[in-house]
């Protein structure tokens, strides 16, 4: 068992990171805030997958690498595995975590509901900002394993959370899905 800190530490840090980028630096350009948050996640995923694959043989194919993400990597981060892995066998994988920790304490902002804007979309946008970070982590981890890809997240019904990826094994030109 490695070193641990209280869960509040990471929760507070993520909340504050998202708040800084969304409300302070890029309050009018959420797409730029999203890119910064994703970049932070990418860095973390890249470094963590380097550490967690140190003593392993090289993965022979993509599926093996993705299974590693679903099982070992996810367990290190969230103490649970991905609940469901689906693929269309043409480079798209869908990972489902039925109880995603970083969303389990988020609720839709009730004050937003009174606004004139479509409340659904505003709440969803605020929520999605929190998802760029884990998307970045997955993309960083896979990129370190030699699999360039785009990762996007989709919340069907809280707190279940689903990842949609488009894998590009041989082509680096796929744009981000966001």
């Amino acid at each position, binding site marked *: 068992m490695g070193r641990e800190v209280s869960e*509040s530490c990471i929760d507070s840090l993520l909340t504050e990171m998202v708040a800084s980028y969304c409300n302070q630096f890029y309050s009018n350009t959420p797409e730029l805030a999203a890119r910064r948050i994703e970049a932070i996640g990418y860095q973390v995923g890249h470094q963590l997958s380097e550490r967690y694959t140190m003593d392993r043989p090289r993965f022979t194919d993509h599926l093996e690498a993705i299974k590693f993400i679903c099982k070992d990597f996810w367990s290190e981060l969230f103490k649970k595995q991905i609940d469901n892995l689906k693929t269309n066998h043409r480079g798209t994988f869908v990972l489902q975590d039925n109880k995603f920790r970083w969303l389990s304490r988020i609720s839709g902002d009730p004050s937003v509901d009174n606004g004139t804007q479509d409340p659904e979309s505003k709440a969803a946008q605020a929520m999605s900002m929190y998802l760029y970070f884990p998307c970045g982590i997955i993309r960083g981890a896979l990129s370190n394993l030699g699999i360039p890809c785009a990762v996007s997240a989709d919340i069907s019904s809280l707190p279940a959370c689903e990842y949609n990826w488009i894998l590009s094994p041989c082509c680096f030109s796929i744009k981000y899905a966001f």
Partner: protein
Amino acid sequence: MAPVAPRSGDAIFASVEHVNAELFTLTYGAIVRQLLTDLEEVEEVNKQLDQMGYNIGVRLIDEFLAKSNVSRCVDFKETADVIAKIGFKMFLGVGASVTNWDADGTCCSIVLEDNPLVDFVELPDTCQGLYYCNILSGVVRGALEMVSMKTEVTWVRDMLRGDDAFELQVKLLKQVPEEYPYKDDE
């Protein structure tokens, strides 16, 4: 009902949910890196980290009070001890010690010999002015402000700058008296 006894930092840390410290350390590191890229000036990054810490401290004090059962501290000395022995322990899992009191008991140092924030960290030459752990000083300042103490928190020693420990100087500037009645809308 008998008053509930304050719990030790170890006991609280053992009872809360834990996460992998590497994830925390690397996330913090990645945030600092990104801020250095975006804000360009090291001084601006120091300010931003302090501000983020302040915002965290303002919220974390609630969790601290709820979980620790600590009652009102009689003086600033006790406050400092509680922060070092219980506060740091229950969140970061590391204890700290309090030293270097000044004569009138309003200024002291909290010394951390172990600090999970800086595992794997080395400062490059271009970041020599960076107070890498500035978020921690912000947390202490924010938390104390919520319990009516205005403080100034500065780094005196920093292992990333070659010192032998992390030393936070906490200086009590003003104790804000509580005012009644509280206004409803505040």
